[in-house]
């Protein structure tokens, strides 16, 4: 089980992993856009050449509706691990690597993400294991109408 920075060769594997696990899917172009804009932020978990988990991350500009927020922040577009590779702490490890890069390369002050209200497993990971807090509820965020928790984690102690 290899945890390493994303390579272009991995993008199709990430896409396949995403399609198997999550209903929120993207064309390859979108993966390319992430990797070629912020090459330091996306990581994969790989076994014998197969992508079994990934984190697809980016940086976001300032949030328009938060006037005092002129800080750059990281954002997790998508993260998932194949069901057959769970219980290895992969999601946590992927997230930690990405956060570190957000803080050191881009001086991100915090990282944000969205999670389905009903996704208890993911909520547990973000809130309990990684220390995210719920910032907001975005009604009807997902295509099937489900609400999302907008979550946030400060990276102030990671930045150097």
């Amino acid at each position, binding site marked *: *089980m*290899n*945890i*390493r*920075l994303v*390579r*272009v*060769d991995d993008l*199709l594997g990430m*896409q*396949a992993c995403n*399609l*198997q*696990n*999550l*209903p929120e*899917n*993207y*064309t*390859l*172009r979108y993966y*390319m856009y992430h*990797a*070629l*804009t912020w*090459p*330091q932020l996306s990581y994969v978990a790989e*076994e*014998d050449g197969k992508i*079994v988990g990934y984190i697809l991350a980016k940086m976001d500009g300032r949030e328009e509706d938060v006037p005092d927020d002129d800080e750059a922040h990281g954002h997790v577009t998508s993260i998932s691990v*194949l*069901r*057959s*590779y*769970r*219980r*290895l702490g992969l999601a946590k*490890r992927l997230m930690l*690597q990405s956060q570190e*890069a957000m803080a*050191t*390369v*881009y*001086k991100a002050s915090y990282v944000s993400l969205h999670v389905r209200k*009903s996704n208890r497993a993911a909520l547990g990971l973000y809130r309990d294991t990684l220390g995210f807090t719920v910032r907001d509820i975005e009604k009807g965020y997902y*295509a*099937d109408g489900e609400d999302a928790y907008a979550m946030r984690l400060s990276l102030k102690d990671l930045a150097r």
Partner: protein
Amino acid sequence: MPPLATPPARALPQRESTLFKEVLHHYEDRQLKKGLKAAETILKKFPNHGETLCMKGLILTHMGRRDEGFDLVKQGVRFDLTSHICWHVFGLVQKGQKNYDEALKSYTQALRFDKENMNILRDAAHLQTQLRHYDQLVETRHTLLRLRPQLRQNWIALAVAYHLNGNRTESKNVLEQFGRIVKNVPDYDVELSEVLLYHIRLLEDLGEYKEALALLDTNAKSRVIIDRVAIMEFRARLSSKLQSEDAQQAWQGLIEQNADCYDYYKGYLSNRGIDLDALTDETRAQALQTLRQFVEQFTRAAAPQRLALAVAVGDEFKELLEPYLRTRLAKGIPSLFTDLKALYRDPSKRDSIESVAHALLDSLAHAPDAPCPSNIDPTMYIWTLYFLAQHHSHLGRHEKALLLLDTAIVHTPTLPELYLFRGRVLKRAGDPYGAARWVDQARLLDLQDRFLNARCGKYRLRAGLVKEAEEVFGLFTKKDAPSPSQDLEDMQSLLYLTEDADAHRRNGDYAMALKRYIAIQKIFDDFEDDQFDFHGYSMRKFTVNIYLNLLKWEDNLRSHPAYVHAAIEASRILLRLYDDPSIATKASSQSHLSDADKKAKKRAKKAEKKVQEEAKKASSTSTNEDKGLEAVPPKDEDPDGMKLFQSPEPLERAAKLLKPLSTLAKDNVHAWTAIYDVAVRRKKYLQALQALQQAHALDPASPDLHVRLIDFAQRWKVLNDKVAEKAATVLSSSLAKFISEDVPLERFNSQYLQTHSTRGDSILSAAKASQLLGAPREEVEAAVFNVLNADVGLELETAIAVDAFLAEIQSPRVDEFRAAAKEKFPLSTVFSPHAELPALRKSAIQLAVAEVNAEKEEVIS
């Protein structure tokens, strides 16, 4: 006054000249209606003004009236062949159509008439990159730099151009010059950091390790390079290459930063002279010692422990194995088996794993009907059963695997993994229907999990249940998509398209199968197009290293297994069409759409078209909506694939599909046999023979090769086409290297059979060959039945292939074979009598989707 050089037809009087400038401005601001109006005003007086016609055409294209627009643009160009505007517009529109070759020609023309137009030069550079015309690219980038040396990206783009053109030294020179003149860089500038990382990579590629390291250290210290991981990785690699003392520390630092990355351990060990892929007794001991230290230092990391298992042998291996297995089985890690599978290449390790796991199981086993004793961990018990089931099934012991799984399921009926794997075992044993049902049971245990859903869909496809598969996939696809298949195709699901295509193919629905394989081809075309925008974007973002990796990946794009498989299978279908065009008309009459369905579809299509046309009329000149230069792909006009199936030139289409494989899949025997099949029908005998030579170099005993050697020899004997004398000599002598001229083909065939008499696939191949050679059907049948002999290693796939072959030659002994095969593969259902098929298909669905939805609704409301 317009310049004297302007041809009289281009010059416009004051009023129209002003209007034309307005047209350009309106276009730039995307004020499409205004621009159109202004253009039409000019054209009233000057209907043949090329530049205005072109601009009008461009605007119409943006408004969605693409065909009209394109025609106007072409007209405009014809009226003013020396206008850079006309050629530029022409190029823009062609680029939007993804016709990059023609677009570049237009841009090149435009540059003839306006050599220093930055926009045109930039677009030309992107096209040159896309088309891999790197020498032209260098020239264009030079011009751009000369025109605007103050733009940082022009420097970087030139360096990249040299690099792509194979001139790393010149690339380095450009970067050095750039480094000297760049000023006023803000702190923590990500862009400059990336440029420097590129420069260092370049130096590393050139072998100038000292210079690379120096550049790295200087800029890392001064915090100009801010990517810590990259700094550490470069430092470790470069120090190793320089055999510097700092190297070990550098690798250690990397491992501390990410203890889960195998590359770092390999780098560390390699730096100490230990090659993990080529261990000696001495290096093995050293490696193990180092790894043990890492295990102690990084207790949470799995990598050093797993590497230690790969390195250790004998008793040391067993010693490390037991705790490794025990902790993971106690934790209940589903991927434990796939983790250890690579170790099975070593039979003694495989046996150790089996004995250790069984010993653990024995210590955990307890009576099934009594509650679990307190000293036994039930979780560990279940996962040990699961692990051993995977182990035994992997080694072909499917019955044993099923026993273990059934024990586990009785104990813990709610664990989806158990049902999933039970399905997998049945699949391997040749019962796709039972497999689908068990995987469906797994799915029903967690309806929120897309992974289980996807598996269920896949297993239904393996059982040939395409409609039922689409139903289940549809539980997770977008509700507003035209169909689940369309959504999965839009989201580029190669897995779905491949499995669905294969299912249709096995069902004999070649039209639908071809449609899906071609959909895969189209997706790969889209992947190729995707890089285009990055030629400019990455230069603006300065992310050069990964951009270069993108280009390299694109160069090898069609080596991807999904493309290779689709190309080969599609070519086989196209060859069927070529060999027997009547199957196209037969398929049409058997199309799964009934007459009533077809009429309804036609009516619906007509209605939809009417709505579309009305919408078009309404919107065409009434909105400013910019639809861009790229057309939106049309709705699916060929739902059952019949149009595609009946398209002309199947042979040429097959050749086009296979072409990339000769370079990108050259280690794949099946690619070469497919190339042979097409080439020989196209009468390209040299190419055909070369394909056979390639296949032979890879696997001289290949059964697929053998039958084609005979096929070729036979065709060559009776050839009445005119082949050039020189070519004929080459062909004859090359063929003679495989089959001596004095050996009759029947003897060659029986010699092959004798040499490989215990291989089922070789027996089948020899039988096919003898059929080619005209042997009577009874003889061919008898030959094929030999696969059932006791001394023959018969694989399930081969038995299935024999079954298909017997059906193809319309053998009356098919049922006899199937009965015998069923005895060889007792768990299988693929050889069950045809009469049982409907019941089997029904049994593959655990519970109808509609019934489950009804249940769900009850729960929610």
